[in-house]
């Protein structure tokens, strides 16, 4: 135990003397859906303001909320339809909107699902592609983990989902995309921002998941992205959030598949 005490003192000493650097640093943590965008924006921002270091961490929405609360990060990122109680004390700013695309393997013949069919597939009531016009193959449902912002948003909007037990669970958007790209019989859902040619986005009730249809309010599966700060944002934190909300940056994230905040 004595050794631990010594170690502890040593560490404390290093913290005290090691942190006196001139550079200002801002840390963002949380939502994996917004992380790539935050990193890109941070790159741009650091180019314009070389004396500031912006670090972006993933982790997920809960990490975003926790680390904003604990101060591990000055800004937490969360992508939930509704913020949980833990976030009550935090100031939230909506910086973007994001569509949720339902995806299948490109080899799948299916192009469109009704909300009803989508619900039954994820409930396990429909478990063969032939029941909804595809080949005679079992359906592998791929979903996010409980607590995921994308999953709770998906389930809240589609309504009435009690996820089938045998659903494969992956813990990020990119991983769901890779899983669906590898398995011809699978179906999943991901952030519209990372949709690519490896998978096929389905129409829902005959509406395609595109930036245009989301802006026109035709596509149903949309959720907001929050930045969370302890108290009202001030100083460098405020400057960075304001920077994200400038027209230039909003246009940039729109080009990459997210939607402007307003």
């Amino acid at each position: 135990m004595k050794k631990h005490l010594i170690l502890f003192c040593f560490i404390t000493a290093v913290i005290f003397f090691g942190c006196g650097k001139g550079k200002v640093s801002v840390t963002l943590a949380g939502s994996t859906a917004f992380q790539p965008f935050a990193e890109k924006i941070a790159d741009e921002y650091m180019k314009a303001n070389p004396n500031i270091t912006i670090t972006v961490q993933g982790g997920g929405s809960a990490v975003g909320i926790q680390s904003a609360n604990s101060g591990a990060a000055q800004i937490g990122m969360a992508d939930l339809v509704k913020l949980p109680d833990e976030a009550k004390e935090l100031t939230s700013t909506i910086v973007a909107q994001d569509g949720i695309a339902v995806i299948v393997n490109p080899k799948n013949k299916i192009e469109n699902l009704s909300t009803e069919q989508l619900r039954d597939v994820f409930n396990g009531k429909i478990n063969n592609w032939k029941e909804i016009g595809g080949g005679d193959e079992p359906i592998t449902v791929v979903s996010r983990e409980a607590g995921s912002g994308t999953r709770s948003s998906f389930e809240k909007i589609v309504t009435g989902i009690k996820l089938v037990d045998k659903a494969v669970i992956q813990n990020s958007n990119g991983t769901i995309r890779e899983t669906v790209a590898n398995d011809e019989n699978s179906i999943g859902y991901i952030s519209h921002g990372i949709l690519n040619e490896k998978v096929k986005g389905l129409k829902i009730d005959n509406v395609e998941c595109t930036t245009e249809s989301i802006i026109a309010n035709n596509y149903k599966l949309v959720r907001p992205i929050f930045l969370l700060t302890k108290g009202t944002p001030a100083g460098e934190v405020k400057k960075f959030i304001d920077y994200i909300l400038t027209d230039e940056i909003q246009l940039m994230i729109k080009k990459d598949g997210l939607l402007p905040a307003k």
Partner: protein
Amino acid sequence: MFSEKGVERLLSVIAFSAISALALIALFIFIEGIPFLLKYGIKDFLLSSDWRPESGKFGIYPMISASFWVMLGAMLVGAPFGIAGAIFLAEFTPKTVMHIIKPAIELLAAVPSVIYGFIGVVVLAPIIREVFGGPGLSLLAGAIILGIMILPTVISISIDSILAVPASFREGSLALGATIWQTVHMLTIKAAKSGIIASIILGMGRAIGETMAVIMVTGNAVMIPNSALDSVRTLTANIALEMSYATGMHREALFATGVVLFIVIIFLNAIASVVIRKKVITK
């Protein structure tokens, strides 16, 4: 420069570093997890198979059974191959060859689990999907990948313990006219038993504690497996998958999952150390 007594005292303090680390870790995991267990009910938590954090249902029976089956599967794959390899390399291979192969195998213990997991996803899972059906990301895939992952641990430590058996044992047996194989299975293995068991325990620890490779290859479905082809979620995967998005009760439930893991491992080690100690005494 140090007095003999001073050195001894310092060493005796340091010797407790591992156990104090363990205590510290246990303390923090328990502080976060125990209140939940008391609130929710230990029986409901352990024996219910309903894991729906969004509606306040936290039953981890499916994960307990998945962890057990994946570990057992990994042992079925890893232990026979590992021990066979160790005996072959230690007893039937020229020393020079063994001195090349053993380090090479030890090297493979340092291959990151994420690489094993990745190969499981791109090579093994598609094969399982095509040959046996199911989603491919399954208990079977997890058991095979983990079995391979523990091979270096099992082989390396077993070889060391076989080689540590005094040469005089072997020479005596051979002089009496026994073949090498008779000497090995009647004498050497018995003398090296505690080392071999230790290697298997380390392997089990690795299998039950492995997180990243398991998350990648088992598919993580919350269900009690009916066959090896079903997708399953282990205790470790449960924590790692959901921790990042969990808040409130859900977060506490994941720490409680950590508490269960902890207790399982302490229990395993208790059995193991009893086995080893008995061996030492009877010898």
